[in-house]
Structure formats: C-alpha cells, structure tokens
C-alpha cells in the first residue's frame, strides 16, 4: 500500500518513515474510538491502521459498544466540551456513561498492547484499565479550550490519568491539562475517493447531473448544513460578487434524517437562495466522496466561511486539488491557509466577497496560489506526515 504514496511523497521521506518504524519494532499499538464508519476519525483509522502494520508495527483497532442512551450522553459531552451552555450533564448521564464504560472495559482487550490511543471523549474512561508499563494517549479531535466546567471536572480525572494527549492546535488545549500535550494536525489521504484524481468525464457528468454549467465560474463551499458554517453569509458574499461577475454558487453538504437542526438550516438556505438559478444547494448522501471530489476539482474558487471550526480539513482537500481557498481567519483554517500565498484569510462577508472577486478576475493568481496550496498540503497535511507524528509521540513516551 505504501508504494501508492510514492507518487505523492519523495522516496527519501517514505524511507525515513520506514527507518523510524524500525526503531519501534515489536511495539504493539491499539486504537480505540466510537465508530467504525462515518466521521473523520474512522476515515483516517481505516487507512492508518493497515499502513502502520505495513511499517512493521503491530496495530489494531477496536470500537467501543454503546446503546442509544450512552451515545446520547457522549454527544452531550461532546457539545458541552465544544460549546458550553446549551444543556447540562445530569447525575443520570454520569451513571449511564460509567455503566457503559465498565462494560467496554470487559470486552476490549487492552492488556496486550504497549501503547493505547483513545480517540475523543466517548472511550475516555477506559483509562481505568491501564497497566503498569503501558503508555496511554488521549487523541482529542475537538476544541476543549473553553468547556463546560462541570463536564470538564468529570472528565479531567480521566484525562490526567493518561501519559500524553494530542490536539490539533494549541488553541484547543484546555489550561490545566497536566499531561504532555502534543500538537498534531489531522491529515488527508491522497488515495481516498475524496481526493484521488478523477477523469474529466466523471467530473463533467457530475456537474451535468446537478445542472451546473461547467463553462461558467463556480464558487464552492463544502460543509454540512450548520449555522457554524455560515452558509447564509456565503450567499450574501456571492450576491456582492454577482453584481459584477458572472458566477455560480454551489453549497454542497449533507444532513442526516435525525438531525433536526440540519434540516432547519437547509430550509433557511433554500429560503435565502430564493429563485436564483445560479445557486445550487446540494444535500448529498454522506458517502458522496467522488461527487464532492468532482465539485472541488471543477470549482474556480473554494470558500470556507465557518464561524467556528474543529480543524476544517475540507480546506486541505480543496488545496490538494490546486484550489486557492478563501477561509475564515479562525482555528484550524488559519493553520492551513497562508494568507496571500495559498489563498486568503478573511474576517467578514465583505472580505469574502472582495477576495472572491480578486480571484475570479485573476486566473494567474489562482493558478499560482493553487500550486502553492497543493504543495503546502503535500508537505504538511498528508497521512504519511500524520503517521510520522504518531510514531514520534510513541517513541518519546516509551523512552521517557
């Protein structure tokens, strides 16, 4: 499988990864998360686990069990860590979480491993199984810098039992985390359907399927239907652009049937679209990877105007496809875009419109920024870099 990556990364870099892995020969690693399918964590583990095995490091992946009640509680914990204030964690919630955690303790074998990666808060409580000599790492994929205090008090005792933690960016680290906090951004996989090259025929037919004109400029935002992604703001920016530039706006995303907020936002977006035939609001099934890929490849300019963002890897996905991205000057987005070099960082609807116009008017700038964007991702946001970082953390913790 590694050979497939040789096309994207120089041989020397792949070789260094293999050399690093040799120094960890015999180390056994386990990843634990809450789902096998859906979401960025599962997506990356599907590829990372076989790659680590190919490097000669025995790596396994387990998924915790849980009933609907348990996952309701963990969803609440997630929300309260990410955005406090809308709900509270009840005594019954704590009981539900602990009861399920102890069930998982009995069905997941962690004793066999030297290093255990626990992803996100759902399986956090498994730390009670930690044996002497093992190294346990909490990989946190969300922003916990300003959590709900009660929830944090509950989770803190688990977190500080780990040997190390990993966050996307330092801004996401909660003050008071007493264990080493490593900073490792997420990554994209160049050979995933989302990112691999597509033939022109498929790209064209995808546009035709949605009624998008391939001959006219396309401004694209890919995101779920969520107010935090500010789709209405994107429509407003597009309208400012449209006064002088012929273009189409594509808002592509999805919402699940059980996501009432998603449906509500979708309705709001449709209302804002009105009868504008050049706005395409696409609610796609969650596995529409090739379609999203095609839309990104056919876009003239890509926008990511989020108000708040976990990391916003969709930015790197577009950059990988040689697209300059105009993104909000926040969190993970500002780590990916280098202002004026790989795209633009903006702080308002007006700023977004201004930069979209600049890029629509200047194909040479688009081309140059797109090239820079691709190189930036190749250098810093591919899965091989992610594996290298994990191996270094494992090395560091095992030797300490």
């Amino acid at each position, binding site marked *: 499988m590694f050979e497939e990556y040789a096309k994207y990364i*120089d*041989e*020397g*870099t*792949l*070789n*260094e990864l293999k*050399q*690093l892995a040799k*120094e960890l020969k015999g180390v056994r690693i386990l990843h634990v998360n809450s789902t096998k399918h859906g979401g960025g964590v599962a997506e990356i583990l599907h590829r990372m686990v076989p790659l680590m095995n190919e490097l000669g490091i025995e790596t396994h992946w387990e998924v915790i069990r849980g009933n609907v009640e348990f996952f309701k509680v963990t969803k609440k914990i997630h929300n309260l860590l990410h955005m406090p204030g809308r709900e509270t964690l009840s005594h019954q919630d704590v009981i539900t979480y602990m009861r399920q955690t102890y069930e998982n303790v009995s069905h997941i074998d962690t004793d066999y491993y030297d290093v255990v990666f626990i992803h996100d808060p759902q399986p956090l409580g498994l730390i009670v199984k930690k044996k002497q000599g093992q190294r346990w790492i909490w990989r946190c994929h969300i922003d916990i810098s300003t959590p709900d205090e009660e929830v944090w008090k509950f989770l803190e005792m688990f977190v500080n039992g780990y040997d190390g933690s990993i*966050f996307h960016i*330092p*801004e996401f*680290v909660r*003050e008071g985390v007493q264990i*080493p*906090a*490593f*900073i*490792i951004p997420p990554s994209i996989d160049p050979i995933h359907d989302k990112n691999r090259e597509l033939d022109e025929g498929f790209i064209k037919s995808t546009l035709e399927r949605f009624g998008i004109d391939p001959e006219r400029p396309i401004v694209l935002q890919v995101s779920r239907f969520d107010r935090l992604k500010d789709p209405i703001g994107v429509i407003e920016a597009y309208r400012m652009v449209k006064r002088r530039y012929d273009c189409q706006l594509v808002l592509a995303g999805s919402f699940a049937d059980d996501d009432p907020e998603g449906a509500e936002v979708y309705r709001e977006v449709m209302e804002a679209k009105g009868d504008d035939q050049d706005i395409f609001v696409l609610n796609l099934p969650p596995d529409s990877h090739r379609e999203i890929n095609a839309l990104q490849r056919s876009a003239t300019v890509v926008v990511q105007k989020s108000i708040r963002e976990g990391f916003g890897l969709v930015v790197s996905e577009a950059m990988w496809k040689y697209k300059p991205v105009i993104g909000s000057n926040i969190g993970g987005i500002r780590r990916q875009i*280098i202002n*004026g*070099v*790989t795209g633009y960082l903006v702080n308002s609807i007006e700023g977004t419109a201004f930069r979209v116009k600049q890029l629509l008017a200047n194909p040479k700038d688009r081309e140059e920024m797109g090239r*820079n964007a691709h*190189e*930036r991702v190749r*250098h*810093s946001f591919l899965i091989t870099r992610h594996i*290298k*970082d994990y191996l*270094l*953390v494992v*090395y*560091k913790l095992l030797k300490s």
Partner: protein
Amino acid sequence: MSTFVFKSELWTAQYTGLRVNTVASFMRALHEVDDDTIYYHLYRNLFEYHFLPTDYGNSFAYWLAENGFPVLAEKFSAIDLMECVCIADIRAEMLKILHSGVDGFERLCKPFYFIRAIRKVVDTGTVANSLEEFREGIKKVGIHSLFYHLVTSRLVHGEPVNDFSRWLRSMGEEEKAEKIERIDLMAYSLYDVRDMILNYLES
C-alpha cells in the same frame, strides 16, 4: 577515505503550556523557554515553509507583524540562522532586537503559544564512500536529511560548517565544499538546494 552516513531528523510538536499576550511577556518567555522551543519556532518554520514565498521567516515574526510590530517582525525575519551555531546566540540576538524596540510592549496582543520540537535523528540507511556515491545519496535521501546535514547538525556540533562541506573537504574537494557553504538556505527551497548541490557535484 571516510564514509559519509546520511542521517535525517524528524520532529513533532509539544505544547509547552506557555501562552503570552503581550510583547513584554513574550520577552520574558524568550528568556525561559528551552532550546528546542526556539528551534521549533525558527528552524521548523524554515523547513515547513521553505518552498513558499511567505511574508516572514518564522512564527515569532508573524506574531509580531500581526500585532502591529512590523519593524520588529522584519528584524526577526532577517536573523540569519546560518550564521548562528548555537541557540543561545539566536536567543540573545532576538532579545537584543526586542530591547531596541518600540513602545507598546504591555499592549494586549493575540496569544502566542510556545511549542517545543520533539526531535529524533534517524539513519537513512544510505552511505557514501566516494564522490559518486555521495551524489547518488543526495539524490536519494529526503529533504529532511538535507535539512539535517545543512542546517541542524551545525547546531548539534556547534560548528559553522555544514556536514556536506566538511566531508567534501576531507575528500579534497575544497571548491565544491565552498560552493555548498555559500548557498543561501534562507532563500531557496530545499528542492532547489538539492539541484544546486547536484550541479556543483557534477561540475
């Protein structure tokens, strides 16, 4: 004849827990942080962005610029890392720049997060016993390896000469060694540097 062993240095990042939001507290932190933290913000940045035309050369400079200290940002950016053989010198240079600075050091800025580099040197498995093998090695190893031998190992050994030039001199190749030494590593991408070295070796 001496053997050249191609090594490489890989690194990841660890948050130090130190966050500052004024230039005054930034100065105090610069006194305190360990060498690997200075290394991260200067050298890792040089590596991270070597192929892109960025406005400034390191994250200290970016932060100063973003917070309304463009002169300091330019001065920080212009620190020639190739002229320094130890982090202590660079630290002193940065503090000297800040001491000669302007007003507003207590003004509230956006936070700056100090990150430490977790560094690990690995053998690449490539060695050279002749000029020909050396050239093949330069072609084969990754840019991390070039960075290590040209930049980082100078800090490790506390010497102004890079590993490639030192070995070439030991092989009697003074002119080639000299040419490699003169490459401005702050200005070229490592891909360009590789091509330049290969050209010098072939000449």
